[in-house]
Each structure stands twice: as structure tokens, then as C-alpha cells.
């Protein structure tokens, strides 16, 4: 069977692009919520900041797994 269309080049790069969508949205939501809550109640900004960073780190981890696995499986079939 002939292959009508194919992709050449680095599929890992495309995969990482797809993997970054979710964490991108997630990180955006976290900081949007933080800015909103600080605008509504400025005195709460110090209290919520550690949670912002924890949430940011947890969400961002997925994008970073994408980077690491992109290299690990770059040569895989």
C-alpha cells in the first residue's frame, strides 16, 4: 500500500507543542485567579502567594515532563 501523506522531521517537537497546550492554559488560569483575588482583596495577596507557586509548580510539571520525554523517546519508533 502506498503512503499518500507522511510527516518527516521531529515528531517529538510536535508532541511537545501539543503537550504544552494544557499546562499553558492551566498556568494562565492560576495567575489570572491570583490577580483577580488580589484585585478584589489586596490584603490577601501575601496569604495566597505560596499556594499560587505550589499550583504553578504542579501544573507546570506536565509541560516539563513533555520536555524530558521528548528527548527520551526522540529516537524511539
Amino acid at each position, binding site marked *: 500500500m502506498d503512503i499518500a501523506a507522511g510527516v518527516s522531521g521531529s515528531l517529538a517537537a510536535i508532541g511537545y507543542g501539543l503537550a504544552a497546550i494544557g499546562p499553558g492554559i492551566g498556568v494562565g488560569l492560576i495567575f489570572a485567579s491570583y490577580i483577580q483575588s488580589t484585585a478584589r482583596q489586596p490584603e490577601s495577596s501575601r496569604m495566597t502567594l*505560596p499556594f499560587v*507557586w*505550589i499550583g*504553578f*509548580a*504542579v501544573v*507546570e*510539571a506536565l509541560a*516539563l*515532563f513533555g*520536555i*524530558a520525554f521528548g*528527548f527520551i523517546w526522540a529516537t524511539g519508533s
Partner: protein
Amino acid sequence: MIGQAVALQSDVPFPPEVGDFYLPSIVPWGGLDSLWFTKITALVWVSTALILVFFLLAYRKPKMVPGKAQWMAESAYGFVRNNIGVEMLGAERGVRFAPYLATLLLFIVFNNMWSIVPIAQISPNSHIAFPAFLALISYVLFNYAGIKKFGFRKYMRNSLIPPAPWFVLPILIPIEFFSTFLVRPFSLAVRLFANMFAGHMLLLVFTLGGFAMLQANPALAPFSVLSWLMTIALTLLELLVIFLQAYVFTVLTASYIQGAVAEEH
């Protein structure tokens, strides 16, 4: 480094690879295949020595009105103790865990810092071994803290069985186990590693990309300059990432300890 830069101009290995992280041995008397002492090892030793010497000197003669060095040491430790330890773990426990948290933060900051220091230019944390071991220490620590407080049985029950209706427990218990005991140390290690790895990779792409474009066609020189300006901008971004990741690692460790010793979910 200068030798490397000269080699770059003659033949640019453009897409940087994982192999660029495996540095050659720098022992003058050893063969190149004896990889026990590379730049990475040297940088870890230097950063450990810097931390030790700085804090020993700063606290040799503590004064009521601190001098410059003592002030820096006190504010570094005070930041971790007050803003991370006490804030997340409570007054008593926060002070008890502050030495570990401060050591962790400083060790990560000093090691990350090598990624943008000229000549060094690579962080030891861009090798998975160092973040993995730090994550292992934190993993053992928060489990130990929980087991010491509740005993093994009650600690497991606290961390594995959330207050939920009985019929969702068959799904929840494996998920809780997976997230608490498997994903936590793994993500802690990979987060720091991947940040440092990706940072080094980005700097390599833009630096080498400039050389590669210049080599492909001299008319592309303006874009090479743009690429090198990007490198400078990304170096500043790295500076942010260095402190952010050290802070995040420490805060997550503190939050895991807090989760392990919390009375109720």
C-alpha cells in the same frame, strides 16, 4: 571554553543534543574515558564549599548589630524560616524543619546559579542524578515525619483514605497512593531537572543558532546578532527560573511535610 568557542566557529554542531550534557573528564592525569570527575562534579564541590565557607565566616563572631555578611546569612535563613517554614508548617514545627529547608534552598540556588555564570555555563542540576537525590531526601523526610507522628498504620490510613463515600474508595485509594508515594518524588526531581535542562538547551539553541546562521550565509549576520541578543534576554529569564525553582522545591517539600503531619485532611 575558549577552545570550544573556536571549535564552534569552524564547525557548528547545530541542533544541540542530549550528548552536549555529557562533559568530558577534567582530571589532567586521567584518561578521557575516566568520567568520575567532570565540570559537573567540580561545580557541585565548589558550590558546597562556597555555602560552607560563607556561613562559617558569617557566623564566626555573631554580633547584636549584624555586619554585611552576617546580615546576608541571617536574611537568607530568616526568609526560609519565616516565609516558608513558619508560614506553612506552623511556629514550632516550622522552626524545627527550617535548617533542612534552608540547606535545600541554598544548595539548589548555588547549583542552579552555575547555569548562567560565565565559564561554568551549566548547572549540575541539569543532570537528573542531583535533583533525584534531593527529591529522595525530601521523600524520606516527609514520610519519616508522618510515620514518627502517627505510627505507620495510622499514617498510611491518613494519607491513603480520604473522607469519601465507601463506594468510591476502590478508585480513590490507588489514585492517592499513586499521587502521594509515586508521583510526588518523581515530579519533584523532574521539575528541577527539566527546568535546568531546558534552560541550558535554550541558551545552546540561540548561541549555536547564531553561529550556524552566520556560517550558512554571511548575509544572515543581523539575524545572528538578534539570536545572541535573545541569549542575553533568556539569561535574565534563567536568573528568574533559578530562584523560582529553588523556592518551589523548598515550598513543595514544606507542603508535603505539612500534609504528612496534618491531623485531618
